[in-house]
């Protein structure tokens, strides 16, 4: 960049609010487009929703998630709950889930664990 260019830049109008909006909109568009284009056809995920707030984990990665009301285990493709403080204990009794579309629900704690498959399938075959 030569001196002439620097001067010209200095003389140009300052960054306005409209510029900022345009930049933000463009950035958002690029973000959305790249998300649509590069969204990996990921394997199943485990979505844990507590009081409407969701967190996503990989079903293929073992994890022990200690939460306020319970512990969620992800191991070798199975998901289950232990140490729940709910009064009915149905979430623990649900046992292990392993396939897309399955859920563990804890009504007292307003808590849902769902296995999401790749894409939009209602069910899958050939896991047993």
């Amino acid at each position: 960049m030569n001196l002439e260019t620097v001067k010209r830049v200095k003389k140009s109008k300052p960054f306005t609010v409209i510029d900022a909006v345009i930049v933000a909109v463009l950035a958002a568009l690029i973000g959305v487009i790249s998300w649509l284009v590069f969204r990996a056809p990921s394997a199943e995920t485990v979505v844990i929703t507590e009081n409407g707030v969701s967190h996503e984990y990989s079903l293929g990665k073992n994890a022990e998630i200690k939460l306020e009301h319970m512990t969620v285990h992800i191991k070798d493709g199975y998901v289950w709950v232990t140490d729940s403080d709910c009064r009915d204990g149905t979430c623990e009794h649900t046992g292990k889930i392993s396939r897309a579309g399955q859920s563990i629900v804890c009504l007292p704690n307003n808590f849902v664990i769902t296995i999401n498959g790749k894409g939009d399938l209602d069910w899958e075959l050939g896991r047993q």
Partner: protein
Amino acid sequence: MFAVFGVFGCAASGYTVFGEVEAFSGDIMFSARIMGGRAEYAYQRMCGVISDINKQCSTTRADSDVAKFNASGANADIEVGEHCYKIFIEAKEYAALTDGAYDPTIMPLAELWHVDAESLAEYRPSIDGTHVSPLSLPTVEEVQSALEYCGVEHIDAFERDGKYYLVKSDARVKLDFGGIAKGYAVDKCVEILKEYDISSALLDISGNAYFYGSYIERGNKSDWRVGVVSPRPRAAETLARGYVCAFTEKGDASAVTSGDYMRYYIYDGAGDNEVFVPHIITPSGVPAGLIYSDGQWKNAGDNVISATVIGKSSAMCDVLATAVVALGLADGARLLQKVGYKGLIFTEKRFIIVGNVELYKTDEYDGYKAYERVDDIESGV
């Protein structure tokens, strides 16, 4: 027994989702999504029926009717429950229909090959890449002599004073309803759904799925979208779970997938000869895909690795899926055509679609494209 009955929560979809219950100490997994009618009552009734069937037919419970029959001597009348009796009658018909490709009496062969439920629990490879090999595989002579006491003709079934009996002609005869009982249970559950005015439901008993009515989303009816898990790499080799294809199904049909990749073990043969031994045994008494040559068992190559069967009766789907793996691509496809059931059959290299199966999102669920499609059964021999 079921750990608990009636585990449910209302999903946003409008279906009452019953989380998969690991039932009967792991013998059976049952899950359901039910819309309309009295879902909770229907679910509890279904759990009861599944529990009854399992109590009568499990091979791993020492107190089941099947276990009592298997342990019994020749010519002793063994009283069994109604489900057990009816499953045997149905199984016998299917054995005839499939020319023995499905056979409920191959338990002695399954034990000989270490592919019965108990042996597989020991030898199934683990996800960490390790496996335990049985010390030996049976000899050709051992297989031949076991075949002599396999076959439904060795068992008599009769009713007397409202009670049901099974009796065998040879003490070594054993039953295994593993390839039919889950399907039979699904069919019983479908009867219950009708009783409780259910409008739409999805049932799955250990891999035997049933799509009851149409799929309903925000009040609109649509087809069920079903993925078929990729048979390769085998179960113990990956946790990444791709689909070999997906299809749509209008409903009021069952679908079952059988294959060589979930229940199997690896036998460490002489030298580098690793033999993959699947749980499905062919009419010749040998696990699907195995041949005997140069003095040892080997994998033959192009056997059926995944067979999905779609049709009205879940028991029949269950039986046919096993039979297709046992028969191979061409004979398996012919069998499905003969009985009018739909199917998707994959071997290591090829696949065939039998009947009118609508593939779904072929760009996204495109694993099948790695296989060569066989359009004409006769050319697929």
